[in-house]
């Protein structure tokens, strides 16, 4: 293969698949390079996609015509929208997938993607051009493949090492060799590497679980698809079980802590706080007598069960004894032990907001290699890296960047490149300043238009989006203008202040605890609205008054966000900055005043000084 590609993507995980599909959708001749074709789209840890924050990301990737949501819908066997009792901004769609069906769906989507080639080979080296940027990839079987841009998405494979008790196995994932050559290549490129860890629980044989002793947890009926392009989910839906640890489990773990890889001091990498091992939970929350464990089937014709909540690096025999202390699991057999994995990641502060390595032109990184955790975080970065790599390979600039006000994807990338990571980074809605606006239900309205401009959205989705956006605009206009008197509303059973002031549909929808059926009765046209349309009205009614009150503050944030810091600004000559602030700003090179304010350790005084300097700069240049 001496053929040249516009974009090469290394890695067939969630970041790599989105990157390859995204670059190809933009028209780039794209090569997906992976160790093994069979593990493309593998769910290495829990068999679920979505959730609070993560579900938001999946919908955003979908809004840019990405593949994760569509594949998840094709594989979904248990679907639940989290936070259904809370408002629309924090509801998180989540689907448990049949792992085999998910792999098949991803592979099907990639194979159907024009302009995308898939090749099984190990990437062992990187060749740079005269400008220090990427020229070609060298494979383990001796090939040199030239490219215009490269996206590296190696997950936990960079010098990955699995720990089970005192055993250590070099691996990227159980049964797969680590990527050592690439780690060396990165070291030669001078990329700042650090170590992180994560873990996974043992897998159980579902046939050995006493399901009838356990509380059952059904999914939503009907299951709501993750993708805007999916009409409905057709797979048979399964039920999950709930069990828990017991005081006996905790006693056993405490007695064997010294054998845990994490507690025995054999692992230095920092693990995620929100996905602690069961050892961590027992030590840090010693007063708790039980921890909940969800038993999630991994497939329709697969008896493997994922016990969510007990990731561990204890030796195999201790894992078996521990499982037997939990209700319903007395006779449960472990089919694969849990483990902790340590791996190299690149400090993402070395990246531009387009996810391009600043010091190595045309090299893009996405996924766990950037210090994140989670399939959804990986997919979101993969998509952005793929789109930017395509732009770069065609001779353009990598400027496909979403802001914090536009998307969780923007929040994610901005956090990474600006703040770096001290533990595997997970998306949470608390990270978004504009949480009420960035909803899972309006991802398409927020992003699809941008995607069309970027060229990554296909005609079918574009047409569907435009029809929906127009319908939303019409419905909102009608809901603002159509109104009723308080007397008329009271007759219809809607109690309110009889002040004679007419209330618009939106105002009525905003009444706390209002029964939707009563609103429908008062304004019968609402009955004819599609549910997706109606939920846009409800969200607008609920949040608009709040957003208006925050407007002044948000305008200030936006203004700071728009204050661009010139690439060549010398922070050392900005008057009024202390030497420490100068150092921090010079190292991070924030692109806007807003991002400077989010840097750790930057004082409000420094921001004020910078703002004055920028204003003066702006006055000079205009």
């Amino acid at each position: 293969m001496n053929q040249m590609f516009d974009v090469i993507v290394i890695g067939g995980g969630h970041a790599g698949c989105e990157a390859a599909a995204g670059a190809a959708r933009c028209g780039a001749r794209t090569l997906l390079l992976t160790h093994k074709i069979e593990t493309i789209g593998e769910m290495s840890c829990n068999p679920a996609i979505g959730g609070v924050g993560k579900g938001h990301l999946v919908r955003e990737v979908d809004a840019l015509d990405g593949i994760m949501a569509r594949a998840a819908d094709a594989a979904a066997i248990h679907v639940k929208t989290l936070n259904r009792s809370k408002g629309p901004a924090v509801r998180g769609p989540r689907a448990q997938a049949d792992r085999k069906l998910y792999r098949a769906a991803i592979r099907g989507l990639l194979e159907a993607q024009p302009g995308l080639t898939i090749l099984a080979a190990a990437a062992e080296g990187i060749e740079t051009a005269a400008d220090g940027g990427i020229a070609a990839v060298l494979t383990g079987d001796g090939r040199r493949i030239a490219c215009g841009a490269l996206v590296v998405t190696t997950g936990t494979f960079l010098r990955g090492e699995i720990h089970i008790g005192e055993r250590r196995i070099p691996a990227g994932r159980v049964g797969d060799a680590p990527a050592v050559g690439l780690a060396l290549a990165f070291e030669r490129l001078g990329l700042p590497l650090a170590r992180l860890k994560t873990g996974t629980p043992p897998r159980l044989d579902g046939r050995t679980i006493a399901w009838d002793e356990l509380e059952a947890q059904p999914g939503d009926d009907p299951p709501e698809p993750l993708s805007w392009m999916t009409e409905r989910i057709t797979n048979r839906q399964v039920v999950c079980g709930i069990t828990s640890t017991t005081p006996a489990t905790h006693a056993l773990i405490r007695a064997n802590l010294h054998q845990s890889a994490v507690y025995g001091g054999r692992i230095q990498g920092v693990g995620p706080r929100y996905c602690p091992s069961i050892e961590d939970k027992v030590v840090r929350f010693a007063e708790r007598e039980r921890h909940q464990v969800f038993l999630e089937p991994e497939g329709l014709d697969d008896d493997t069960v994922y016990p969510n909540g007990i990731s561990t690096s204890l030796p195999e025999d201790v894992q078996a004894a521990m499982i037997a202390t939990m209700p319903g699991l007395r006779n449960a057999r472990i089919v694969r032990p849990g483990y902790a994995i340590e791996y190299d990641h690149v400090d993402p502060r070395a990246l531009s907001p387009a996810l391009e390595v600043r010091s190595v032109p045309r090299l893009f990184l996405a996924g766990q290699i950037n210090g994140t955790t989670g399939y959804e975080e990986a997919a979101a970065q993969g998509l952005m890296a793929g789109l930017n790599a395509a732009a770069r390979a065609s001779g353009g600039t990598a400027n496909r960047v979403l802001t914090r006000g536009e998307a969780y994807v923007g929040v994610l990338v901005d956090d990474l490149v600006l703040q770096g990571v001290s533990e595997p980074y997970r998306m949470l809605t608390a990270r978004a300043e504009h949480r009420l606006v960035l909803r899972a239900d309006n991802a398409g309205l927020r992003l699809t238009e941008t995607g069309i401009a970027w060229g990554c959205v296909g005609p079918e989705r574009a047409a569907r989006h435009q029809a929906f956006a127009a319908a939303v605009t019409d419905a909102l206009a009608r809901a603002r203008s159509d109104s009723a008197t308080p007397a008329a509303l009271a007759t219809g059973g809607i109690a309110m202040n009889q002040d004679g002031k007419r209330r618009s549909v939106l105002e009525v929808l905003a009444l706390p605890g209002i029964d939707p059926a009563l609103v429908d009765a008062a304004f019968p046209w609402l009955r004819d609205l599609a549910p997706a349309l109606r939920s846009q009205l409800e969200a607008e009614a609920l949040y608009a008054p709040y957003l208006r009150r925050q407007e002044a503050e948000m305008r200030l944030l936006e203004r700071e966000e728009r204050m661009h810091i010139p690439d060549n600004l010398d922070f050392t000559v900005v008057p009024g900055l202390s030497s420490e602030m100068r150092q921090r700003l010079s190292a991070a090179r924030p692109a806007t005043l807003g991002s400077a304010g989010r840097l750790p350790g930057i004082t409000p005084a420094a921001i004020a000084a910078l703002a004055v300097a920028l204003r003066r700069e702006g006055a000079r240049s205009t």
Partner: protein
Amino acid sequence: MAGRGAMNTADTIFALASGGGRGAIAVLRMSGPAAGMALAALAGGLPKSRMASLRRLRDEAGEVLDQALVLWFPGPHSYTGEDSAELHLHGGPAVVAAVAGALAALGARPAEPGEFTRRAFLNGRMDLTAAEGVADLVAAETDAQRRQALRQVDGALATLTGAWAGRLTRLLAHQEAAIEFAEDDLPTDLGDQARAGAVALRAEIEQHLADGGRGERLREGVLVAILGAPNAGKSSLLNALVGREAAIVSARAGTTRDVVEVRLDLAGVPVTLADTAGLREAGDEIEQEGIRRAHRRAEEADLVLAVFATDAPPDAETLAWVTPAALVVANKVDLRSAPATIGGVVPLAISARSGEGLDALRAALSAAAVRLAGAGDAALLTRPRHRAALTEASAWLAEAEAAALPELGSEALRAALRALGRLTGQVGVEAILDVVFRDFCIGK
């Protein structure tokens, strides 16, 4: 706020830290990257840090300028956070001028007003409220003002605000945990806890807001407007209180045509006495304008001192200003005794001319001043900026209490936290997540 372009912290600055004029010792202070070099050049080498050393100071030509006690404070553990030095010189103006000249020749420049404190603030050595406190301390005229400013320098306001921000962070963390980790086995009453916490916090903030503006008034001074009919003896009273001829006194009604103001220290509180034009149906235009100003000053005043003469019936214009909050004075008791009440208020009987009753009036004014401005020990809010930020935080807390959905409660708590953050510093999302993961076992 980052002001003039000349204020570059790359410069090394110096200033006379002791007062101007002749004294036994004059202290020159210097700060900036070249402070060490300049000190070494002057004193023939750097002394041990933070130790007083006696050195001969020489200029570039080697001429001895003075024998001085020198102190070397390497950054960041100095007032400004930069390399700093102090030179304790002999106090003559010629000595100071010579050493200042030598420093300038070494590349240092005279500091702008407040520049040392500004640098300390920029270097994170003090928060904004402490920097304001330093400015107030330098400007303090009275004892109570000094106490109040010192408390702010010591961080009384910053500590309190910081403690509130800490509590708020925790409330927010609990609210956020309930939102983010719906699937985890968390306590079910997190939202209610956050609400109860918001109620308690708001009550405390409101308590501080209800300080009657004492702190601001102490910083600015209490304004007392002296009102009364022409020839009631207002100017005589002012002069008697001040103990000098501050206002022109004549028997002719309407002598004081504009407002005459005098500053007094009453029980440690700075008080401005404003003598105004007499209230009457005015004759000429100038006097009319004077009366208009008298009314305006009385409206602005923290306290009205209504003066009536015992030799005339109380005039309606002045009576209109008599309220239970006003001080009512019956003047000229040397001519005729005071009535029992004026406008329903028992007057203080005085004579500006004989001095009778003046001590009682002074005591009453002092008591009122202390009531209005405090003695510098209690009020923490000393600027409108403080009040505005806390008022906003309180309003958002009320919003959080009433929020119908957890994410709306959370938005309101975030806004309250930002308002508090504007007072002293910032609280980032990481601080909130730290609390979430410390307080709850999260992760399946």
